[in-house]
């Protein structure tokens, strides 16, 4: 027995066979019909569609034998796929390649074989054969040969049609699954929207309202029906619009949910709303508006308590401080040296306590939205000079020089001047506290992001590690617990700065690293039309 050599493009041929997706599939009528026709036409008891795999031949269709497959080394078809037209063995007994083949010497006792390669694809790679086998020696007539070749072409065409049909079905299944999933998802989304008691507004990056859904309770948004197509700046109350646009910009820039809480008067009743703004596309965001009046009532009771306690603390403290001040300055008679020292200690501590209470009251007012900003065009060089002037005493005491830099940008900002000075004062006193004696603190202005103006306070202190940057603006956060004793201050200054800046529609930030000093900055919006330079 002489086994057939491998096909010259065996790997490509095996790939074409795998691509046909026929191996080990159930019988199919269109292939069964063809082997029956081949058997009738050739007058042979056996006909097969055999696929020649790497190590075996496998029968997609067969008539006259029972097996499904055999090893490749004994396969007549392994020879036939190397032939171009019809591969014919007229008598296996006299052919040295097959005389001792187990299918010749044993069942099914093959003497005659005629096979036509099944060639697929543009490269005409033979994946198997259509063949007719007989138990006696013989040969095919030219008509039978021609019929076998025609039937082989039919097999190939069927393979191609079958493959296209399979692909179409798979695509169709996928489409139906996707459509079903989309339908489910859409239904879920609708259910979610319907069940959600919150109101909803969808807005474009520039603030144009694209879509809205009213909340079940009283609407925060006046005249919501006519909002679509309008800009929030024109249809929201001014304070809401300012804060909303600021959070919208952040939501789109950061891809995170931005929240906003505010109080509006609806039908004469105070109504608290929470807005959650999240990007819903590259250029639009969704804002969910929830009524949080109930929750806020509780919070406000707490705030009122804080405010009352602070007030009740402040009144007696004021008297204590005043009395001590008169004592200290000898207004009610001279004091012995040690008594004077004790009075001074009492007075400075009373003052520190008052500072904390004032800061708490300020923060409470800010978080309750009770700070009324009187927004006017503010000249940056003037506020820098005022802030530097008001801190000069403290700076001199600490041996720190406050240097006001050039103001390269001439545009005024839209702000409450007294509050800007308060912000700068907080940042400056902070910078001075952490500056080594003999160093300088720089006060400067530069162009900020989004057409805003950036105010910077730069010191040469110890600097702050990156992981602490976000937390320094939190209430009562001092990096070193001993700081408040060592350096004074309440731990509320930066929290107040952040609240005040955000109330202006601005942002705060910090550039710092240990050993490199700190640059605290905040940005305020420029006056409309004043932000651009020609």
């Amino acid at each position, binding site marked *: 027995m002489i086994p057939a050599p491998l096909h010259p493009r065996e790997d490509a041929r095996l790939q074409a066979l795998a691509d046909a997706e026929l191996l080990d599939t159930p019988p199919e009528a269109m292939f069964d019909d063809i082997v029956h026709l081949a058997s009738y036409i050739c007058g042979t008891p056996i006909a097969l569609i055999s696929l020649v795999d790497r190590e075996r031949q496998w029968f997609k269709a067969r008539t006259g034998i029972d097996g499904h497959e055999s090893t490749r080394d004994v396969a007549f078809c392994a020879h036939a796929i190397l032939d171009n037209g019809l591969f014919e063995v007229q008598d296996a007994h006299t052919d040295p390649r097959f005389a001792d083949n187990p299918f010749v010497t044993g069942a099914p006792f093959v003497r005659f074989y005629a096979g036509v390669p099944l060639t697929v694809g543009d490269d005409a790679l033979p994946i198997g054969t259509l063949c007719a086998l007989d138990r006696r020696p013989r040969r095919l007539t030219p008509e039978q040969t021609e019929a076998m070749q025609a039937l082989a072409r039919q097999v190939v065409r069927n393979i191609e049609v079958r493959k296209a049909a399979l692909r179409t079905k798979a695509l169709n299944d996928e489409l139906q699954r996707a459509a079903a999933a989309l339908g489910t998802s859409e239904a879920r989304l609708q259910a979610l929207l319907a069940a959600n008691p919150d109101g909803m507004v969808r807005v474009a990056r520039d603030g144009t309202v694209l879509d809205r859904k009213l909340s079940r309770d009283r609407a925060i948004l006046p005249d919501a029906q006519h909002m679509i197509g309008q800009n929030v700046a024109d249809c929201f109350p001014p304070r809401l619009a300012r804060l909303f646009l600021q959070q919208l910009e952040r939501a789109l820039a950061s891809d995170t949910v931005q929240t906003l809480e505010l109080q509006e008067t609806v039908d004469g009743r105070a109504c608290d709303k929470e807005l959650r703004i999240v990007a819903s596309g590259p250029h639009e965001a969704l804002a969910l508006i929830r009524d949080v009046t109930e929750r806020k009532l509780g919070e406000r009771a707490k705030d009122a308590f804080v405010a009352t306690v602070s007030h009740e603390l*402040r*009144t*007696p403290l*004021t*008297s204590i*401080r*005043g*009395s001590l*001040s*008169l004592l200290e*300055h000898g*207004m*009610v008679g001279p004091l012995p040296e040690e008594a004077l020292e004790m009075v001074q200690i009492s007075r400075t501590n009373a003052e520190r306590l*008052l500072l904390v209470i004032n800061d708490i009251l300020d923060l409470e007012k800010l978080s309750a939205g009770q700070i*009324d900003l*009187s927004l006017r065009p503010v000249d940056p060089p003037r506020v820098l000079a005022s802030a530097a002037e008001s801190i000069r005493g403290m700076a001199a005491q600490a041996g720190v020089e406050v240097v006001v830099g050039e103001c390269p940008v001439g545009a005024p900002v839209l702000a409450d001047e007294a509050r800007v000075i308060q912000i700068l004062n907080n940042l400056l006193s902070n910078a001075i506290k952490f500056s080594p004696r003999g160093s300088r603190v720089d006060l400067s202005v530069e162009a900020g992001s989004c057409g805003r103006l950036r105010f910077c306070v730069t010191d040469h202190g110890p600097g702050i590690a990156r992981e602490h940057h976000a937390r320094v603006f939190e209430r009562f956060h001092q990096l070193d617990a001993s700081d408040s004793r060592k350096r004074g201050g309440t731990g509320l200054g930066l929290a107040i700065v952040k609240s005040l800046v955000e109330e202006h529609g601005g942002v705060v930030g910090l550039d710092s690293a240990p050993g490199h000093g700190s640059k605290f900055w905040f940005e305020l919006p420029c006056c409309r039309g004043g932000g651009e330079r020609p």
Partner: protein
Amino acid sequence: MSGARVIGKVLLVDDEPDIRRIGQLSLARVGRWQVAVAASGAEALEVAARERPDVILLDVMMPVDDGPTTLARLRERPDTADIPVIFMTAKVLPHELQRWRELGAAGTIPKPFDPMTLPDEVRRVLAAAEAP
């Protein structure tokens, strides 16, 4: 300061005894003025008529007659109508300051006050009110 009023006597009106006492000491010892005190709006009218102070420091938040009411009463009486009145209050937001001016106060001194600088504050407010 040539046109500034010379202060000899000050009336301090406040319902809080501690504040009244500290203010009194401040005005007397730091300011070196004669000081009269009153604990209510009604008492203020009586003391003002009797003592004829050069300036009245009037607390805004008082029970019964508050600062603005007391100011109006003082203005109604010929013998007290021309005495300058300075409000003393913690309410010093811009719109509040505006309101005190409209009520006819010469000015406002924010509370809490520093007793060591209170007399200077009084002089400053009066000078500003009399400036053309």
